[in-house]
């Protein structure tokens, strides 16, 4: 069959054609919502109309046959309407209350996991990892699976002081809000990259490569028509590798993940915050990364035990102090914790008030 005529610069289809009738009718006129369970909420409009949302976890990586199955369910209970969230959840939109329970039953039977609404761990935001990225220093999907198998009940049933947003990035480019998440893992390298000098002249632009280094560790090497790296200045960010494929930074024994905590994007109570590094390196240990999983669980459960209601991880830590965070979790404080990069001076303590 012939391929149809292409069109360009038409942009995405207008969203209105995908909105269920109850949303079209009550667009911008919602009055309030209630969380009925970790996987179910109802939005009530000023007109009195109700819309039930059932939230289901997805692994983000979906086969088309799974999408077809999701569609089949949405046809049966939601008149063919559904949406996805910014954290890779599927939301079934139900306007007929009598269909809520049968839908929940069918989802359960088919093995779907409902939850993530309210003071819970929602689904993880993550990157491609070894599944599809050229720069990955770990596999994000595997870490997500291993972590959420362990934290499963915090998605489905077990409440926390407030929501906890976990993210995973497979390199420091952080295609995901790792830098502002409650708990996050970011994959890091720990070794100065090697240079295949004979390939540099064919594959790389030397000025761009030099400019790519945030610590000015790269300089020209005219004799080799290449570049050289001052080892003591390199912080293994990998930006040179991104612009110059002849530079290799990946190393199976020296790549792994760091743990960062305390970030948030919302402005509720306190301003948005950056995540801060608390564990500088855990070696890659596929398929289940047991030490990285244990680290996330330790931090989550220390927070659950000590934080006040409505406090996010970062708010709890700021109230008690970072030094208390280290004593409560038992995490070792090392040279890597003291900043020596761009914003270092803002992080040193300037008062004799602290705890142990």
């Amino acid at each position, binding site marked *: 069959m012939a*391929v149809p*005529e*292409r069109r360009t*610069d*038409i942009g*995405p289809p207008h*969203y209105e054609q*995908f909105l269920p009738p109850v949303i079209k009718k009550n*667009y911008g006129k*919602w009055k*309030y919502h209630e969380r009925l369970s970790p996987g179910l909420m109802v939005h009530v409009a000023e007109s009195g109309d109700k819309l039930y*949302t059932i939230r289901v976890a997805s*692994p*983000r*990586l*979906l*086969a*088309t*046959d799974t*999408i077809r199955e999701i569609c089949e369910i949405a046809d049966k209970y939601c008149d063919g*309407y*559904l*949406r*996805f969230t*910014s954290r*890779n959840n*599927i939301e079934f939109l139900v306007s007929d209350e009598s269909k809520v329970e049968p839908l929940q039953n069918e989802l359960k039977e088919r093995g779907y*996991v409902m939850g993530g609404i309210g003071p819970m761990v929602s689904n993880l935001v993550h990157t*491609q990892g*070894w*599944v*599809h990225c*050229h720069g990955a220093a770990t596999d994000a999907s*595997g870490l997500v*699976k291993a972590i959420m*198998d362990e934290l*499963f009940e915090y*998605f489905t049933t077990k409440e926390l002081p407030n929501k906890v947003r976990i993210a995973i990035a497979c390199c*420091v*480019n*952080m295609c995901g*809000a*790792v*830098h*502002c998440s409650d708990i996050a893992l970011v994959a890091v390298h720990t070794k100065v990259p090697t240079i295949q000098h004979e390939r540099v002249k064919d594959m790389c632009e030397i000025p761009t490569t030099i400019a*790519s280094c*945030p610590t000015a560790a790269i300089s020209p090497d005219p004799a080799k028509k290449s570049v050289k790296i001052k080892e003591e200045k390199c912080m293994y*960010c990998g*930006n040179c590798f991104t612009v110059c494929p002849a530079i290799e930074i990946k190393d199976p*024994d020296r790549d792994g993940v760091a743990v960062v905590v305390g970030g948030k*994007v919302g*402005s*509720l*109570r306190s301003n*948005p915050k950056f995540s801060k590094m608390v564990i500088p390196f855990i070696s*890659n240990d*596929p*398929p*289940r990364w047991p030490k990285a999983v244990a680290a996330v669980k330790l931090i989550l459960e220390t927070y659950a035990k000590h934080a006040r209601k*409505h406090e996010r991880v970062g708010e709890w830590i700021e109230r008690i102090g970072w030094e208390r965070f280290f004593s409560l979790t038992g995490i070792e404080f090392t040279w890597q914790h003291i900043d020596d990069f761009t914003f270092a001076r803002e992080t040193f303590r300037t008062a004799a008030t602290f705890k142990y």
Partner: protein
Amino acid sequence: MSKKYETPLLDELEKGPWPSFVKELKKAAEKNEMAADELGQLEKSYKTKLGYWKHGGIVGVRGYGGGVIGRYSSLPEEFPNVAHFHTVRVNQPSGWFYTTEALRMICDIWDKYGSRLTNLHGSTGDMILLGTRTEKLEDIFAELSSRGWDLGGSGSAMRTPSCCVGPARCEWANIDTLEITYQLTQEFQDELHRPAYPYKFKIKVAGCACDCVAAIARADLSIIGTWKGDIKIDQDEVRKYAEGGMNIQEEIVDMCPTGCMSWDGNELKIDNQECNRCMHCIAKMTKALRPGDEKGVTICVGSKAPIVVGAMLSWVIVPFMKVEPPYDELKELIRNIIDWWDENGKPRERIGELIERLGMRSFLEYVGLPPVPQQVKEPRRDPFWFFTEEDIQKIKEREEEEKKTGQYKF
């Protein structure tokens, strides 16, 4: 018939209660040889702890410079069916709403031309169709675009704008995030499809300060819904929360960052002049409290991930702006912002980094925005600053005026 690989390591990730991406890979691999080789190569990565994807080459569809991420296996002899494994970014509809009919149509196209694997969705918001060959790209694009779908952004270009669920299903939405996102996406089609910028430029639109799309952290231009005027209080509903077991003093009043609330056991009072609209009380008592009536946006610029000199959050440049269709004022402001960056930015320099390099004043003056205290957390602390001749002239003129009137103006 696709090749069957032994995957003992990945098989471990089929176990456990959380949905398994390995099951998805296997499901696709049963019917598709690209997906089968993807699975085989991933198992090898799990064994060696190394990735095997090469840098993207220049691939795409005719007339576009973005929307397709070139991806090649570095082991094409071992895994020939992923020798090419390009990603197609499809611009999602605002708010990620779909009909099953639309999703099935996308699946049909992908089953025919691609790997049967997808991401719903990628980090920027696009639908990600994961893995196809160069020679299939034109057909995929024709199939998609003839049915009303277009590619998203990639490379040094405007990236696909995205937004929260907004007024479609949220009582806190101060603005029509879906329509703003749609309108901006349409406005910048050329910039989205033909990379001509120093680096990427992301736009995200959040309906309120809860920021469910991480606009403040993940967008070069963050548009966040806000309001002016008093928070609307339904005192009966407040009392119902108290009766229902909420400790209003501890959970609401004491957690208010500005201390602008009080509760006497019967009535909740808010000193609205002191409220900074953080959303805590409204989010916790959604039946009782609602944002004020005068709606608009706060506009911030500059947030990004750590590469190159550290992560940044967006900075407030416009505290409050009314926005209404067709959003001409907003579009013009964004064009000015991008012009300044495009004119002055070095390759791979994001707008936040450029503002640091050339100064906030240089940026704000070009864009035509005045200095206001809402743009800073605090004024400068060290006694070094620039004056232009005009700045001094203004001060001198004012002092002359003061001598005449005998009234000082600070």
